[in-house]
Each structure stands twice: as C-alpha cells, then as structure tokens.
C-alpha cells in the first residue's frame, strides 16, 4: 500500500485538519464531532442542506459546502457512512428556521444512519426532510434489492438543490427540485485498477493487467461484469448505451454532462472520454448544455471514471448556472 498518509487510523482526522487549514474562509468544524459546516452557518431564512457519506470520495462532500451548495457535510470513516449523531449535530447546526433537507446516497448504511438522525432531530421539533439519490444504472432497480446506488449524479443534486435553497425557497420547493434532478440523472462508471481502504491495507479487489471492471461502485463494490480492457471509445459507447437507454434520453433533450475521475485517472484521459461522449450525444441529437470534467466523487486512488447525464428543463438550467462558491465547486 503506497499512500501519502501517517497512521491509517488517523487519516480522516488528519484530512479534516488539512481541509480546515486550507479553506478557513469557507469552512468550520463543529466542536468535538466530525461535521463540516459553512463558515456562516446557520444561514437565517435559508433551508439547510446536509449531505455526507464515507470518506474517500473527496472532494465530496465537504468540498461542496459553501455558497449555493451544501450547508454541512458529515464525513464518515473511509467508505463508511457517517453516524446518526454526526448527522443530527449537522442538522441542528445548519437549521436557519426554514427546515433542513438531507441529501442521501442510496446505500443501506447511509439511509439508516441519516434516517435515525432525522428521527432524533424531528423529536426536537426541527423540520427535516430527505431525498435519496440513486443514479447508478449499473445496478438493477428492483423492489427485491436495496435499489440503485447513488454516485456522481449526487453532485448535481447538491448544486441544483443548493441553488434553490440559496434563493430562499421553502423546504418543499427545495425538495421538489432535488427530486426532479434525481428523476432525470443517470450515471455509470468503470475501473481500471482497484483502491485500498487505508485501514484494510490491501486492495478491495484485484484486476489482472489486462482487465477492467464495468459498472464499478464508488466504494469498489464489484460492477456488472469484468472484461478485457478495450479502447476508450468502446468503453464510453457501452456506458453511454446503458445510461441513455435507461431514462431514456431522447432526441432534442438538453443535458448536462459530468465526466468524473475516480481518483487516479489523468484529466487527459477524462477529456479523451469526453470527446466520445460528445460525439455520441451529437449523433443522437441530444444537446449538451454544459459539461463538467474532473474529480467530483472519487474512490480513493481508484483508476477509472464515470459518466453522468442530467436532463435539463429551463428551471434546472437556471439553477445549474447559478453562482456557487465552495472549495471544490466554483461557478461565476
């Protein structure tokens, strides 16, 4: 395990310290508990947005705390959802009197921990609602399973619900746009190499030198299948087919695109992928409104990427374009 860390058990604590040292004008931490909030939290008269998840997905989620996005992020242990007390303290810290929306990725652990926290906060009379993001088309959506995983599409929920909350909208309205994003966003990823949870000390899975995993989860969960590495264009074609056919995205639709690196994939390769994504969308007459290329929802040092499409209407376009100013997501 080659990592730039000290003791594997201190990695989350030290990351948070480094994060706070880097962004003192954006962020502060609550006393005695791992909750990162906007410097100016609670913002009076604004719905508070709380998200979080296991650590190891940086810049998610603390990197999205700030103007026009989240009010608080709860970092759990690496790849482990945060605990109810973290989330509960976050809710209390960001409640500006208009209620709090929890943005949860659809994992059993996340849902349970967030819902326990929600119950705790509601008992104190705080208005709390939630949305559950499940954009990963690699996973069959069935009533017999946990349902789809939440992956990079979550960042669009943060951005758009964040813009709506920043406008001063009600909890109900913020929840409505968040759910509109969730209804219109689809993602799928793949990995070339695995990642290693620091405390585990060895890779979560192994791939041969000529193998890749299609449909990988952002915690290194196995995907739909494994196959020999193919040229980037063929990989993109496969992922795009799954994504486009799922909603489905249709001729004359307008979309936002996110090409998300999983941690170790050079930006150069993400652009090579985007080239093919743009070509496919053009050939299907789906219009690209805006494209984001970079690392938004990572899996430690995994090499691989995911593609996310979000179908836009006028409302979503305006909110997507709205100003945001957070450590990891800035838009003028």
């Amino acid at each position, binding site marked *: 395990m080659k990592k730039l860390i000290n003791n594997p058990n201190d990695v989350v604590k030290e990351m948070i310290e480094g994060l706070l040292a880097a962004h003192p004008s954006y962020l502060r931490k609550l006393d005695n508990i791992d909750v990162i909030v906007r410097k100016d939290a609670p913002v009076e008269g604004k719905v508070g947005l709380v998200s979080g998840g*296991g650590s190891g997905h940086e810049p998610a989620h603390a990197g999205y705390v700030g103007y026009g996005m989240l009010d608080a992020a709860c970092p*759990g*242990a*690496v*790849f*482990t*959802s*945060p*605990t*109810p*007390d973290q989330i509960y303290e976050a809710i209390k810290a960001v409640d500006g009197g208009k209620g709090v929306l929890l943005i949860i990725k659809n*994992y*059993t*652990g996340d849902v*349970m*921990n967030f819902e*326990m926290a929600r119950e705790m906060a509601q008992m104190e009379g705080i208005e709390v609602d939630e949305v559950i993001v499940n954009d990963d088309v*690699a*996973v*069959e959506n069935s009533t*017999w*399973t*946990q349902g789809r*995983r939440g992956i990079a599409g979550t960042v669009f929920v943060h951005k758009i619900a964040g813009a709506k909350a920043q406008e001063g909208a009600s909890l109900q309205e913020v929840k409505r746009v968040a759910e509109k994003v969730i209804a219109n966003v689809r993602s799928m990823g793949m990995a070339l190499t695995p990642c290693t*949870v620091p*405390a*585990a000390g060895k890779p*979560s*899975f192994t791939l041969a030198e000529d193998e890749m995993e299609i449909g990988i*989860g952002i*915690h*290194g*969960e*196995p995907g739909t299948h494994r196959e020999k590495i193919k040229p980037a264009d063929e990989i993109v074609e496969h992922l795009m087919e799954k994504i486009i056919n799922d909603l489905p995205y249709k001729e004359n639709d307008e979309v936002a695109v996110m090409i998300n690196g999983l941690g170790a994939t050079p930006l150069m390769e993400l652009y090579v992928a985007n080239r093919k994504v743009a070509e496919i969308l053009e050939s299907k007459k789906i219009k690209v409104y805006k494209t984001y290329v970079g690392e938004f929802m990572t899996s430690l040092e995994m090499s691989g990427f995911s593609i996310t499409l979000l179908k836009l209407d006028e409302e979503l376009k305006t909110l997507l374009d709205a100003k945001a100013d957070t450590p990891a997501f800035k838009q003028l």
Partner: protein
Amino acid sequence: MVITKNDVLKIVDKIVEVIKENKEYLTELDAAIGDADHGINLDRGFDAVKQKLTTLPETTDIGTILKTIGMTLVSTVGGASGPLYGTAFMRAGQVVQGKNELSEEDIVKIFEAALDGIKQRGKAEAGDKTMIDSIEPAYKALKDSLENNIALPEALNRAANAAKEGMEYTKNISARKGRASYLGERSIGHLDPGATSAYLMIKSFSDVVNLS
C-alpha cells in the same frame, strides 16, 4: 441458571476480542461482495465499547450496559452494521432494563428484541443474505431448546450451531439487502460478512457461558 452482570461483561470482553481477531477476515469477506470495511467498522466500534464500559459506575444494571453498548455502536460504527447492531443492543437493553441478572426467559427476550430491532431497522428478512440469517435460526434454536428444558449452556451451544449453519447458508444465496445486493447472482458463493460477525458474537456468548 442465571447470567450475572459479571457474565455479561465477560461476554462483551470476549466479543471485543473475537471481533479484533477476525477484523481482517471480516474485512476480506466484505471486500468480496461489499466495500471492505466490515471488520474495520466493528473493531472500531467494539474498541469504543470497551473504552466506554470502563466509564460506567459499578452499579450500572445490565439493561443500561446493553443500551450503552448499542448507543456506542451507533455512534462509532457507521455503515449498515452500526445502526443494525446498535439497534439490536439498545432494544436488548430495553427488555432487561434495571436487571442485575438475567433469567433464561430474559435471554430469549434479548434475542427476540435484538432480532426484531434489526428487522425493523433494515427491512430485511431471513434469506436476504444478511446478519438475520444467523441471528434468526440462533434465536429459534435457543427458544426451542429452553422450551424443551435443555440447560442454558447447551441451549446456547445449539444457538451458536444454528447461527453457524445460517451463516454458511448465506454462501448459497444471493443478496437482496445491503451493499451485496448490487451484485445479484454474483454474490452467490460468498459468505455474508454480517452473518459471519453475528455468528462470532453468538458463539462468544455461548463459549463464555459454557466455559464458566
């Protein structure tokens, strides 16, 4: 036969120890069909439990001990297993609130409350390839044995054996809850990490009682 407060503490110590011994093993099981953290999560939680129990007054009753364990697990484990095991211990504590020793009936109640808590919290059933697959057969075996007047140590032994069988059965089925469910059929052939950790805890319970 009754279980004293001291026995309870010994059982907890044993669980802490066994989880630590199996930290890597449980994590490897989770790597195969999940996200490679189950052993790490539980070990972090039970370390905190051990720490926390040293701060409780001498006079603390068994119910409060179990609830404290549950709350500590909830606030330190995270993931799926944190709320699930946390709820299990908290519910178990509720049904023996104020007691300083446990009757055989109490022990059945504890198992029942824990199992119900897990099922409610996780909305899963036996056969979904989760910890329920070892806990539910263990509960049934314990209850049956005691109803048939089998002594507690042997009843617990049968419970542990039933948990083991349940755990092994998870190898043959595909997951319908938790992170492993994303794998569908591909989860077949792998033990469920939570069913394994649950077995280890039940086995620890049985071992301590059988050795004392």
